[in-house]
């Protein structure tokens, strides 16, 4: 190439099998602008939907008067809770969230009414003319004191589902893991109190979609989501329609990271479309996006680590408090995950881990990449650094001495049976060469704070940090989900794969095609559109499960299709198969111990070394370099795996340094990219990543999910480096300038 200035067309793609780096199937349309995201859709006669949201974090609704709004030109529908024909509430796991508020509002930004109009501005203006009379109530905003307030949900939706019974007001879930002798003492003990701020997924593609009435009472919804079928199962009851009349189709997804597990505009768009009998498009703007989806749980964690002089952990005690916000979302699972991985990837015979999530009138929290493990990793790894210092031991050596390995037992009593190369991952990461210190003076762009640093670097200090992250793969505690795939083989040799696995940017589309090409031994494979209409559920693109589950389902369906063709002696075949991972069972509600062989399916671990600089006079930071080694099972598409590691690392760095949803009396104060900062090209250092391939015996091809471990570990690793540079405690993320300066 080169020379001529314009390169050759690249409209054709190399066709890869499992294990080969393969360009994204959707790469070209995404670079040309042709790829249709959920906000790009249009239909003839389309209206625009808009949501009126609560300006209060907690208030009683006295009256809603829509009469004025109905007179606005161009308006075709104004709807309130009275217009919801079916179930008034929905929810990912517990139906505790109103489709449209009735009786009261429980968080800032809660949907109250809907408008459909011919122009989005008409819809916005009409929404302003809906008169809602509120009687403000005192919001519960302090998670520590939530149990002292009247219950936000007297119905106690989450109680009685096999969880520990906890009658305290506003307890969403509480659990205890009691393992060995929780009072066991060691030679040394270190304690700390840690806090994690509320992080946002901040995907770039705003919540959006198009709902199209089918003329027979049903509706087609084109939307960006992580799990098509669970959306349908929530939407249909609210519309009072049988599931078959609600078809959900995956539109282009502009990132997800957990923030699209819960519904956004799905029911709202469908209600408006069915009411107006016109297609309705809804597109949140950035401010609405920040209030329109759940966030990562803020956490307050008290930890005590006890160890012997030789560095062996004796006992880990941790108390975790999570703020679930106004609705449950996936909080019960986050509570459990935070507890399950609180001790990190270390063997410890004794533990007492208490994890509690409360309802408040803060923004609802739920799934975000790392899902509970991020918060406890931050605390646990700070504790390991503290312990190393107390013992006068190298921090890497301490971790190696305690590294969890197959055959070891977790604090839940579960024995690790699959792959878990903790020591190997730690060693490989620790071996990565650290770049030498950079001289001063230098280009301000390379100083902490970049161009904002007006000094010659007199206050610059450098530190090297280390951390290890640990998390499960797939859903857990008896939630035995599955993934379906359907394969059609045509007489001319073509193959068509149907799988509803959501492509959210992670690259599962390529995984599906690579598996199908490998199994069918042909390159002539296409993937049909992702929809509820032609194939059973794939489960959620979350929990680092989709690669594993989709690979398993597509592999099974391909093999069944080949067998079927063989049996028939040729001709066209069409088979659908369900894949399930090894079964899990719940944790004992009183002891947090396993009730069967396992509560979690499998595990993954990542180690990270970080070089950071701080300016102790200005409070500015610069992450200089990141080296990481990650347990990936087997990389289906190595280029995509590196991409997941780099991107996941950036999100953890963001939480360490800058990302926090700030609330004032429950109201979000920074719902914009001006005020909620995410890492830019100037914030991210080079990331040297090593893939440790130790195949997972229970997974197809030995794969492991790779999306979450880098996010779990990087917040802890970045702050470890900042502590090394400042000598400060830095017990809260995001770390603020004041703490760097030592104020």
């Amino acid at each position, binding site marked *: *190439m*080169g020379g001529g*200035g*314009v*390169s*050759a*067309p*690249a*409209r054709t793609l190399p066709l890869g099998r499992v294990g080969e780096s393969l*360009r*994204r199937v*959707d*790469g*070209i349309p*995404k*670079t*040309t*602008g*042709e*790829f249709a*995201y959920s*906000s790009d859709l*249009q239909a003839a006669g389309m209206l625009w939907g808009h949501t009126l949201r609560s300006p209060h974090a907690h208030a009683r609704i006295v009256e809603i008067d829509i009469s004025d709004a109905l007179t606005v030109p161009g308006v075709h529908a104004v709807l309130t809770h009275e217009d919801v024909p079916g179930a008034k509430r929905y929810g990912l796991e517990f139906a505790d969230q109103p489709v449209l508020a009735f009786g009261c509002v429980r968080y800032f930004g809660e949907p109250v009414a809907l408008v459909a109009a011919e122009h989005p*501005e008409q819809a916005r203006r009409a929404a302003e003319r809906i008169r809602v009379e509120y009687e403000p109530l005192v919001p519960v905003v302090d998670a520590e004191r939530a149990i002292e307030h009247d219950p936000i949900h007297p119905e106690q939706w989450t109680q009685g589902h096999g969880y520990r019974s906890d009658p305290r007001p506003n307890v969403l879930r509480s659990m205890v893991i009691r393992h060995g002798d929780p009072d066991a003492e060691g030679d040394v003990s270190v304690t700390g109190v840690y806090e994690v701020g509320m992080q946002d997924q*901040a*995907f*770039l*593609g*705003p919540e959006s979609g198009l709902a199209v009435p089918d003329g027979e009472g049903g509706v087609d919804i084109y939307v960006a989501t992580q799990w098509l079928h669970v959306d349908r199962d929530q939407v249909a009851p609210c519309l009072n329609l049988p599931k078959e009349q609600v078809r959900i189709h995956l539109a*282009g*997804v*502009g*990132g*997800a990271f957990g923030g699209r597990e819960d519904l956004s505009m799905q029911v709202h768009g469908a209600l408006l479309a069915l009411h107006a009998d016109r297609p309705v498009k809804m597109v949140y*703007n*950035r401010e609405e996006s920040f209030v329109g989806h759940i966030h990562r749980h803020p956490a307050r964690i008290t930890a005590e680590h006890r160890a012997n002089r030789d560095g062996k952990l004796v006992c880990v005690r941790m108390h975790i408090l999570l703020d679930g916000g106004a609705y449950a979302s996936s909080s019960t699972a986050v509570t459990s995950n935070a507890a399950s991985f609180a001790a990190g990837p270390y063997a410890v015979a004794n533990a007492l881990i208490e994890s509690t999530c409360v309802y408040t009138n803060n923004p609802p929290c739920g799934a975000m990449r790392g899902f509970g493990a991020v918060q406890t990793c931050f605390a646990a790894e700070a504790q390991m650094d503290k312990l190393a210092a107390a013992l006068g031991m190298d921090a890497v050596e301490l971790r190696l001495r305690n590294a969890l390995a197959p055959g070891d037992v977790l604090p839940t009593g579960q024995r690790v049976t699959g792959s878990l190369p903790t020591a190997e991952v730690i060693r490989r990461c620790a071996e990565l060469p650290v770049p030498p210190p950079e001289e001063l003076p230098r280009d301000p*762009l390379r100083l902490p704070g970049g161009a904002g640093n007006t000094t010659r670097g007199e206050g610059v200090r450098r530190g090297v940090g280390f951390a290890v992250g640990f998390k499960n793969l797939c859903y857990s505690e008896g939630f035995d989900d599955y993934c379906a795939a359907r394969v059609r083989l045509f007489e001319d040799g073509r193959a068509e794969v149907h799988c509803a696995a959501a492509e*959210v*940017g*992670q*690259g599962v589309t390529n995984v599906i095609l690579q598996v199908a090409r490998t199994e069918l031994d042909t390159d002539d494979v296409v993937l049909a559109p992702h929809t509820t209409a032609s194939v059973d559920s794939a489960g959620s693109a979350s929990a680092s499960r989709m690669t594993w589950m989709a690979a398993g389902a597509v592999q099974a369906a391909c093999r069944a299709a080949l067998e079927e063709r063989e049996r028939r002696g040729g001709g066209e075949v069409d088979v659908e198969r369900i894949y399930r991972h090894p079964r899990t069972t719940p944790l004992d509600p009183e002891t947090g111990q396993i009730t069967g062989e396992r509560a979690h399916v499998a595990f993954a671990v990542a180690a990270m070394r970080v070089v950071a600089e701080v300016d102790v006079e200005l409070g500015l930071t610069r992450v200089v370099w990141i080296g990481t080694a990650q347990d990936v099972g087997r990389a289906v598409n190595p*280029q*995509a795996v*590196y*991409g997941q590691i*780099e*991107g*996941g690392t*950036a*999100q953890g760095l963001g939480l360490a340094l800058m990302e926090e949803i700030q609330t004032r009396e429950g109201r979000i104060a920074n719902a*914009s*990219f*001006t005020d909620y900062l*995410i*890492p*830019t*090209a*100037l914030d*991210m250092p080079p*990331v040297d990543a090593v893939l440790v391939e130790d195949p997972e015996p229970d997974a197809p091809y030995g794969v492991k999910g790779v999306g979450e471990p880098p996010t779990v570990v990087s917040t802890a690793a970045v702050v470890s480096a900042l502590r090394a540079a400042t000598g400060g405690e830095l017990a809260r993320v995001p770390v603020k300038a004041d703490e760097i300066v030592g104020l």
Partner: protein
Amino acid sequence: MKIAVVVNGERREADVWEGESLLFALRERMGLPGSKNACEQGECGSCSVLLDGELVCACLVLAAQADGHEVVTVEGLGRGERLHPVQEAFVEAGAVQCGFCTPGLVVAVADLLERAPSPSDDEIREALSGNLCRCTGYAKIFDAVRLAAERVR
């Protein structure tokens, strides 16, 4: 109001509401949804287009302001079926994940390489600091810029 804009070399007319952004007009009235609506307040660069050759956020320009001017969007960068070298480099380098930032980045990088055919790593980082990406951590985007720069030279 009626506006006429030369978009990707073609004269286009649209009837817009006075408050509409150029981004909205491109996406919703001219059938060019390639420019993306990630923040609509000039912070993320996803809607980057060239307005009379200047890199701008289309969300910060009123459609009415573009009346009588020339706009190049991501849809206008390639030549028919031939990808622009920046587009090709993004695909090859693995710089695309969800892709929502990609069109804006592609336009911004094409503009950068026009001005600075051999940018240093620091120049690349600075030039792209107004384009947010949430998926990639930027590493493969930098790879793509270096790859495209080689090819354009």
